[in-house]
């Protein structure tokens, strides 16, 4: 089947404006603006049950419907701060199929009658962001962006904002602060971004992920019913699955939601190299709990609801795969190092919790851990979860609690509980940044 999102796989130069238009590009925006009033566009996306692809899975149409119609200024903000370890789909979309993201953002903007769109690119997408500005210029010249869009009387421009290196800015309220030139730290909610007082410049704002918006043009052209025929009733549509780690063919794979883990990992991504067995699966990068690679898991469909039932989250569908030789204590330490580095420092449980967790892991990996450390690895995360303004503190607890739960024997070997000898080949953990 032809790709809906990764269309560059079928049409390599779809990034070019003329190629995109020749292949039905901007038909969705034209249809929205010329055939529908804004409320109808929201209704169509609501009926499609398109769920946010950034991680939370919140229905996009509902997000749009929360925007008060009478607000004078309203914004659409595209979250392109893709920074979750294991996630590299938005980068491909923005590089290889950028007009589809621009089109989706403009449809969202029309639906809420936004006054401006901001695309927040992580700073490391430096080259990509500058190329994106050229693509937006092309759309502007064709009257698809900017003043009096397609003669409708509605005007809305798109601006690109570059971050400067901070995972936390993928969290929507931190992202809004960062756009305003403030520290990228989360805001207290309510008010939520869609409400007056909660969004960009404290005006009602829709924040959507790149991939979410890339689904929208197809929905407008083909209708909500056709969209729901892809995937499952609760998780409709195509999804980009990022596969990395111990796998034969790492990369992005576009499959309908509801395909099984096994199909993704073995049929599409070629399975595990060197004849090794798959041991652990992180289905949502570093921020979701690890799943042991049992047959039950492998035969499960990948949907928001089933992955939750398995005890993890689908998140942004960033599958990090680990083979039988992977030291799960080391893997958890890597993730904790990440969260400690990326904690913004605003909430004490996250700032202090990640700091102490990193120290405990360093101690354990040096072979100096004790059974007491294993107890701490269960109690410290419990004092972070539910006690922070944003989900980072929540996420940071996941690799610890889930690896202790599923791979406890590996920890026990390190801290000397298990009769088996300690692992002899202790992998080194990268030191924190040397000179910043």
């Amino acid at each position: 089947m032809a790709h809906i999102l990764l269309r560059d796989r079928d049409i390599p130069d779809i990034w070019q404006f003329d190629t995109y238009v020749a292949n039905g590009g901007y038909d969705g925006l034209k249809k929205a603006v010329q055939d529908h009033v804004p409320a109808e566009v929201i209704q169509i996306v609501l009926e499609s049950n398109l769920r946010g692809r950034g991680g939370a899975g919140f229905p996009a149409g509902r997000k749009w419907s929360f925007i008060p119609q009478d607000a004078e200024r309203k914004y659409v903000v595209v979250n392109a701060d893709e920074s979750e370890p294991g996630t590299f789909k938005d980068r491909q979309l923005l590089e290889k199929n950028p007009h589809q993201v621009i089109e989706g953002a403009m449809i969202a903007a029309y639906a809420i009658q936004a006054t401006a769109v901001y695309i927040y690119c992580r700073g490391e997408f430096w080259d990509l962001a500058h190329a994106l500005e050229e693509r937006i210029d092309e759309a502007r010249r064709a009257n698809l962006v900017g003043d009096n869009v397609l003669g409708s009387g509605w005007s809305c421009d798109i601006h690109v904002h570059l971050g400067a290196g901070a995972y936390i800015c993928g969290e929507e309220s931190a992202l809004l602060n960062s756009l305003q030139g403030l520290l990228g730290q989360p805001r207290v909610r309510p008010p939520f971004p869609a409400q007056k007082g909660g969004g960009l410049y404290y005006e009602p704002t829709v924040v959507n992920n790149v991939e979410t918006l890339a689904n929208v043009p197809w929905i407008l052209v083909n209708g909500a019913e056709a969209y729901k025929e892809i995937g499952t009733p609760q998780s409709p549509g195509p999804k980009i699955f990022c596969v990395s780690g111990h796998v034969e063919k790492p990369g992005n794979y576009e499959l309908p939601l509801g395909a099984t883990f096994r199909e993704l990992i073995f049929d599409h991504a070629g399975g595990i190299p060197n004849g090794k067995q798959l041991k652990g699966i992180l289905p949502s990068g570093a921020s979701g709990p690890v799943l042991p690679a049992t047959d039950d898991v492998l035969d499960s469909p990948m949907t928001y609801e089933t992955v939750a039932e398995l005890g993890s989250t689908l998140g942004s569908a960033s599958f990090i795969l680990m083979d039988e030789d992977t030291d799960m204590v080391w893997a958890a330490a890597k993730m904790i190092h990440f969260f400690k580095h990326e904690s913004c420092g605003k909430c004490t449980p996250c700032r202090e919790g990640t700091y102490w967790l990193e120290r405990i892991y360093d101690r354990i990996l040096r072979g100096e851990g004790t059974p007491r450390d294993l107890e701490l690895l269960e109690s410290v995360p419990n004092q972070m979860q539910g006690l922070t303004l944003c989900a980072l503190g929540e996420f940071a607890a996941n690799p610890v609690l889930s690896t202790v739960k599923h791979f406890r024997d590996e920890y026990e070997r390190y801290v000397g509980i298990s009769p088996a000898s300690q692992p002899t080949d202790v992998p080194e953990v990268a030191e924190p940044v040397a000179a910043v």
Partner: protein
Amino acid sequence: MLVEKYADRIDKIFAKYQDKRSAMMDLLHLAQEEYGWLSEDSLREVAALCDVDPTQAHSIAGFYTMYSEKPKGTYWFQVCTDLPCALRGADDFYRQLCEYLGVGEHGGTTGDGLFTVEPVMCLAACDKAPMMQCNFHYHENLDLETVKALVDKLRAEAAQDQKAASE
């Protein structure tokens, strides 16, 4: 001064936003591009442009990892050593690169000031590990041989630049 050299670019940056403060990140990027790093003077310059206290510019420069308040090498290598890359050999690659450049196993800057090597957090290129950015441009599917070739090329480029500057 940025404001004299880049008047048009600065106008365009301000035109994107509702207030001056929002332009700070773009202007810090511009200052770093111009001066190579963010000195006290350049932070004051950006703060004045945005109508904020210099402390505010300091706090932003300190919060985000791409801004540097110390000089870096001409070529700033940031190697991802996060879990997905590490599962594909990024830690070994990092150590080999540090050893090749003679900067010690945890990274740092070469004696000639040409190269800075540091680990960095996930750069959204996990399928092309080991990988790094050099001055924020992507270099992917690396091994010691390919990165040695890159280092040699950059050394030659720098030597040529220096020769051109002295002529």
